[in-house]
């Protein structure tokens, strides 16, 4: 099994850390992983994306043109990456701020109103965990227990009190994701 993923959105949406938690938990499950960000000058407000590969085999190229799953969090990223989903692949997107919705027929498209949900739950910080929950529902590769382990590893000790909130967010994400086509 090899799952090739791109996550793309604004800087500040937690794109990179979501990718990191995915990679970390897959690693804890014994898989091979790679996490390759597109990096820019360290300034706010730009776009950010990351290629994540989870696989049972040694990973060759960490940089890809086509993906099994694209997780898309703003319009710019939609314009750039909709076409890069492999036929038969999966596209997950947050509808917030999207003006042109995905149009492909040869892929599975899911929508998750994570931004809305996050602000409804007053948990803006865990927006990306809601999205992750959606992904975990659609592609059941990552196990929640390992994701939590991953969170523990990546959060500094003093934030460990936030872990229940993250767990909650993942659960919500699993609940609210909806197939579009």
């Amino acid at each position, binding site marked *: 099994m090899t799952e090739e993923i791109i996550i793309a959105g604004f800087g500040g949406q937690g794109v990179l850390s979501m990718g990191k938690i995915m990679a970390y938990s897959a690693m804890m499950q014994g898989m091979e*992983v*790679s996490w390759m960000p597109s*990096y820019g000058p360290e300034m706010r407000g730009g776009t950010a994306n990351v290629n994540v590969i989870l696989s049972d085999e040694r990973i060759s190229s*960490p940089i890809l043109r086509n993906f099994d799953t694209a997780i898309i969090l703003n319009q710019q990223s939609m314009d750039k990456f909709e076409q890069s989903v492999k036929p038969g692949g999966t596209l997950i997107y947050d509808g917030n701020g999207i003006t042109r919705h995905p149009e492909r027929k040869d892929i599975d498209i899911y929508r998750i109103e994570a931004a809305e949900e996050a602000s409804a739950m007053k948990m803006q910080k865990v927006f990306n965990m809601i999205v992750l929950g959606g992904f975990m529902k659609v592609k059941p590769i990552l196990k929640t227990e390992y994701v939590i382990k991953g969170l523990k590893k990546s959060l500094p000790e003093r934030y460990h009190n936030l872990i229940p909130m993250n767990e909650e967010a993942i659960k919500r994400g699993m609940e609210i994701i909806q197939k579009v086509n």
Partner: protein
Amino acid sequence: MEKELKLMKGNEALAEAAIRAGADGYFGYPITPQSEILEYLTEANPQATTGMVVLQAESEVAAINMVYGGAACGKKVMTSSSSPGISLKQEGITYIAGAELPCLIVNVVRGGPGLGTIQPAQSDYFQATKGGGHGDYHLLVLAPASVQEMADFVELSFDLAFKYRNPVMILSDGAIGQMMEKVYLKPQKKRSEEILPWATTGKPATRERNIITSLDLDPERQEKFNLKLVAKYREMAEKEVRFEEFQTDDAEYLFVAYGTSARICQKAIQLARAQGIKVGLLRPITLFPFPKKRLNELGSKVKGMLAVEMSAGQMVEDVMLSVNGKTRVSHYGRMGGMIATPEEVVENLKIFIKG
């Protein structure tokens, strides 16, 4: 002791591996895409644990000359930078080579020339392997292709640097520096307390004074020294060539690629073989010394070699020099921070095969 499993960026893995390898000192100046090395080290603060010195210098020029001073004490010292910063270090590097000092220099390459981009590239190959500084000298150059190798090559570099009393360069790129992968880290080594016989650490009554210099005003003596260097490089060429082969047994065509490009070529091999093209890969791990002999042998077996680089064509010259006309050699490259996809590499292999 068990190796420790971590998920890390290449830059971080290299920094952590330096601490664990018992490095004595790091001297550097920030530049993207490798600032994480200095940042990781200042955060880890090894001065408090192993005693390793970590210092942000006022410039790359100062940093490489700090390395010179530290290496002259027989210490395991290193610096890191990215392309423009490495260009600034050229005088210092040739001094270190000329004074026969061991050290580690890391270049996490970005696109050039000039300020260029901050995205990954492999366009500093000539500079690294032929000598970006003046005079007849060479670095021993290692090209990691994974986060694991970013970590592993640190200790290897120090070993080689001290074995040959020669600076070693890890020629990485922004992709390997910035990406995260699994990495097994070795346990912490103690810093060496040995005082090396040639090092300038204060002259005891029991030995002659030690002098570290790259100067010889007498050209006859200088030439003898140059011949000594030539002999050293020849010895490296005999003993230190490292490379990896993928599916070369039945290969009719061969990719030659290092670092990130080699990773992409591995995937390209899968894609190409799925289309019935028998292609393999030789991945040079040492860029200097270059795997000339093996490439020359393969030159008799394959119908052609395609050098895949993130550059306008630099390593391809060493491939051509290796096969010396025995087989067709061509180049496919992306530049300026662009990275070829496996798919486009296959497309270009097909064009190459057609001739």
